[in-house]
């Protein structure tokens, strides 16, 4: 092969670039000038140009028919993935690091993380979520600041461990804002008055604390007993958000029953705790309310014996 003249060697790169439409205006001009005068480079230019044209044919080729089959299979796999995908984010909340996760059906996990990482979730695949989870957190924050009394989130209770747990959770979800009741009362409402421990177990395994307000369930003597492991301080703070006061006692905290209005069972009235019409019962059959407003927002009327409307508890 003959040695290529210097000028041709130098212009080779621009020549290829021009022929395949990747060159700037100046390079293009130089190349056009050159190939007009140099026959071998003109041939080379032409070969690259035709090559580029042929590449253009490949580019314009229609998508092969097999692509449709691949897409259909993708849709099936996507549907499967969607059904078991949990999107989550971790936030530094006023209550510490907290994880919020949801599936396509609804919120399925709220977890106080402490120093731990994302937990293993049987049957679910966890991936980091985006704006939809941030929006949930903003609402949760409003709730913790007392600017919102309900978290009206669609829930997916598939992480509950059994149907019994699910029933306990659904019942607990109905305990109103600003009220507390006991494990025994939940068990009674469930029609299983002896299943107090099982109710406590179910609430301990609550996959969506705060949203399902298991912090509103306490011992029959008013003791907070436990929350998210040993984080009893969290339970106290969540109750305080709703205006429910607690007092210290050795080894535990207890709700301040004397400062709360009382509903007996499913009576349509609420009383002051000293009401004479109120049978002396343990919290096992009572619900306590932080204020008259809270009781009345549940449709309860003031008791006609103790008249909490005329003689309210001192604030």
């Amino acid at each position, binding site marked *: 092969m003959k040695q290529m003249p210097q000028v041709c060697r130098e212009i080779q*790169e621009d020549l*290829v*670039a021009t022929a*395949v439409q*990747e060159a700037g205006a100046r390079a293009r001009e130089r190349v056009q000038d050159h190939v007009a005068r140099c026959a071998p480079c003109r041939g080379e230019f*032409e*070969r*690259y140009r*035709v*090559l*580029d044209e*042929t*590449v253009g*044919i*490949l*580019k314009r*080729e229609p*998508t*092969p028919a*097999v*692509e449709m*089959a*691949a*897409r259909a*299979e*993708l*849709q099936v*796999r*996507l549907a499967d*993935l*969607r059904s078991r*995908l949990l*999107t989550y*984010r971790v936030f530094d909340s006023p209550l510490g690091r907290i994880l919020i996760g949801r599936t*396509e059906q609804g919120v399925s996990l709220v977890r106080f993380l402490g120093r731990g990482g994302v937990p293993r979730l049987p049957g679910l*695949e966890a*991936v*980091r*979520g*985006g*704006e*939809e*989870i941030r929006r949930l957190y903003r609402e949760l924050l409003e709730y913790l600041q007392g600017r919102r009394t309900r978290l009206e989130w669609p829930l997916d209770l598939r992480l509950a461990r059994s149907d019994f747990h699910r029933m306990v959770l659904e019942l607990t979800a109905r305990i109103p804002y600003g009220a507390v009741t006991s494990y025994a009362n939940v068990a009674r409402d469930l029609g299983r008055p002896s299943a107090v421990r099982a109710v406590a177990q179910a609430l301990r395994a609550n996959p969506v604390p705060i949203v399902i307000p298991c912090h509103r369930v306490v011992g029959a003597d008013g003791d907070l007993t436990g929350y998210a492991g040993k984080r009893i301080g969290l339970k106290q703070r969540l109750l305080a958000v709703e205006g429910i006061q607690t007092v210290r006692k050795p080894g535990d905290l207890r709700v301040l029953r004397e400062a709360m209005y009382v509903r007996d069972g499913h009576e349509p009235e609420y009383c002051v705790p000293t009401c004479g019409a109120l049978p002396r019962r343990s919290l096992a059959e009572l619900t306590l309310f932080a204020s008259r407003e809270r009781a009345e927002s549940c449709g309860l009327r003031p008791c006609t014996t103790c008249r909490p409307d005329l003689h309210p508890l001192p604030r």
Partner: protein
Amino acid sequence: MTDDRFDGLVTAHHGEIYRYLRRVTGRVSDADDLSQETFLRAFRALGSLPPEANVRAWLFAIATNLCRNHFRSETRRRRAYAAVGAEDRGGRDPGPEAETLFHEARDRVEAAVALLPLKQRMAFTLRKLHDLDYAAIGRMLQCSAESARAHVFQAFRKIRQTLNHLKTPCTEARR
């Protein structure tokens, strides 16, 4: 991003991602697997995608990444080379002579593209068949935009050489 928007994304980009993977892997079965995997990954990663991101370039980047992992196995790479040209060609009607020549030119270029080293093949395909810019291609191949451009030019030279080796360069077919 809602599920509906993701469906829209599949409709808009599955075809080209599939073609890209088909071209780079040389095998329909690999394109099937990798295109599905590309979109499943995209679906999982949607939450971490900034709203202003270029979704198309992002999908190509996922596909490219999967492809590179796929070809990390040397055996697979060899098998893919051997498979090149074997698929999807048998059924074409022998048309009038000019058209046959035309198709031959196309087939030879396609075969030459398939013989390129992986990085050049990817850069070439992304640039010339899918019009991505060099900066984006560079990010996908973990090199600079300049290197990405160099890969494309190197690819053109290699294709040209391969066609010379075949003694009947594609250029002849159209004369």
